[in-house]
């Protein structure tokens, strides 16, 4: 009888335990929803009203910074930096990934390179900023400039795109390569006609994600390219305003909270656009 009672008790204990466990896991799972949604909703709520035509199209005026005028030079500057970064990073990363998946038979090289890529993708962006500062800005005498910042952002993106493109190309089954080569076409032809169309979407997704990461990353830009205020106009050898650094300056000088909300919202909106386009790209590929 005692044994039966204790068995019942432990049965009830286990039910309790399981109930608590499931509830706890559900609630942290829901927290995973609430956190991002509430951050984005908060920025929408406070920032949406501040985004006006004037803000998007005008240069900042007056002092302190951001108390009137717009952020157009910052938008232009960020876009130009990412563009230059992509010009640097895309050929190196995608070309390198193509070599690794299509041309080398050495598994050791492949493993070593993807390992290097993963390690380098983990290196904090500020380290790339320091390199840009000491090598490009000072040693090569580029000064704080669009070019130095663009190359630095290119380096930030390079390992991310390299890994993404490598994974996308590797995901194409070997049978397509083998079938094409068995028909006697050249490796380049097989790649162009058979492999690339299948891997394209995955590579594009990696590029969009890397580009967005670079767009929002302030540390490397603060060390190589950005100034508090510029009248607009882009020149490879002069510094630029960027959205993330603008947001940082606005907060650190406590000048215009309203413009800061708008800038933060624009950064997040861009992220949403990037994420949605990646989802679309992936779903198109899935078809």
């Amino acid at each position: 009888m005692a044994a039966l009672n204790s068995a019942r008790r432990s049965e009830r204990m286990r039910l309790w335990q399981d109930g608590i466990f499931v509830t706890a896991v559900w609630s942290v799972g829901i927290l995973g929803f609430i956190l991002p949604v509430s951050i984005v909703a908060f920025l929408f709520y406070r920032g949406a009203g501040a985004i006006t035509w004037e803000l998007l199209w005008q240069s900042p005026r007056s002092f302190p910074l951001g108390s009137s005028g717009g952020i157009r030079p910052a938008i232009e500057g960020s876009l130009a930096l990412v563009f230059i970064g992509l010009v640097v990073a895309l050929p190196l990363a995608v070309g390198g990934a193509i070599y690794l998946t299509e041309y080398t038979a050495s598994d050791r090289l492949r493993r070593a390179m993807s390992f290097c890529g993963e390690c380098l993708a983990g290196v904090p962006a500020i380290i790339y900023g320091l390199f840009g500062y000491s090598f490009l800005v000072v040693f090569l005498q580029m000064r704080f400039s669009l070019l130095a910042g663009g190359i630095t952002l290119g380096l930030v993106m390079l390992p991310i795109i390299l890994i993404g493109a490598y994974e996308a190309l590797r995901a194409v089954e070997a049978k397509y390569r083998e079938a094409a080569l068995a028909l006697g076409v050249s490796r380049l032809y097989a790649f162009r006609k058979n492999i690339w169309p299948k891997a394209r979407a995955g590579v594009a997704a990696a590029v969009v994600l890397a580009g967005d990461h670079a767009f929002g990353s302030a540390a490397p830009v603060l060390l190589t390219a950005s100034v508090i205020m510029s009248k607009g106009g882009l020149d490879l050898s002069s510094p630029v305003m960027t959205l993330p650094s603008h947001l940082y300056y606005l907060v650190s000088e406590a000048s215009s909270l309203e413009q800061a909300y708008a800038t933060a919202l624009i950064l997040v909106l861009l992220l949403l656009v990037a994420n949605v386009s990646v989802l679309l790209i992936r779903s198109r590929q899935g078809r």
Partner: protein
Amino acid sequence: MTVPNADAKPFGRTASLLSPFRGWEDSPQEVFARLLFLLLLVTGVATLLLVLVMVAREASPALFTGTGLWGLLITDPWEPLSQPARLGVRHAWLSTLAVTGVALALAVPVGFGIGMFIAEIAPATIKKMLQPCLELLAGIPSVVYGFFGYVTLIPWFESAFEMATGESLLAAGLILAMMVLPFIASTSAEALGAVPRDVREAALALGVNHCSLTCRVLVRHAAPGLFAAVALGLARALGETLAVLMLAGNSVAVPGSLLDRGQPITALIITELGEAGVGSAKRQALFAAALVLMTVVIAINVVIGALKRRILHGGA
């Protein structure tokens, strides 16, 4: 197809690296493409390695002269203006440690919970919705997190704890926890999901409930992956810059409690680098601090890489 004579190749051993598939036609176009792609790969990786070398080179004088690494990390205070300048970064790495500790203390349990939720409990539709949410959380730029903390947490700290300024290591750590959460969550979900089916079925066949299955069986099998998740979060937290710069308060005093202001290594570098002349001892000290940070992060990544390989090869 003509089979090229291996001896006729000019490169000897490298020839096998350049053209592993002997016997397919080496048209000039093919050779050009192959060399071009190889060149791109080598240039890319070499440039990235140059980053590491340059940072190490700039840092080396601070490591091998004066009080050296010991002085830099342990004994010296940060007094760049005293005569002679004393350039220790003890306050910075203590701050980094504090914010990272707070972040992981919060993000690891919650992240594991979300990982278990995704891997075990969530219905498929909710799983599908949760993943983009986590990607969103991972994608929000550091500076936006910093701003978000600045307008929400800091005023709240000021009223709740009656602090003069709400900027503190705790505030930075809280925001940092949100930033590393998605990385820990998705990596641990992956690790738990990768536990072989038969293990799961064997446990269920014994009649265990969700709790025992997850906490006793799956966690043991997924241990390397869960460890990798923590390591990834740690590496992310250590290198995070803008958010901690905006929230930790940027004070060079050695922090005594979590409610004190502090200055993590990354914040120290951004704040001081502009005023450090080329070749000055201060600049070398900043690069040395960065080198320490970089070495730690790369070491963590090497561990993660090793763990991942172990998971992929079925051991656990």
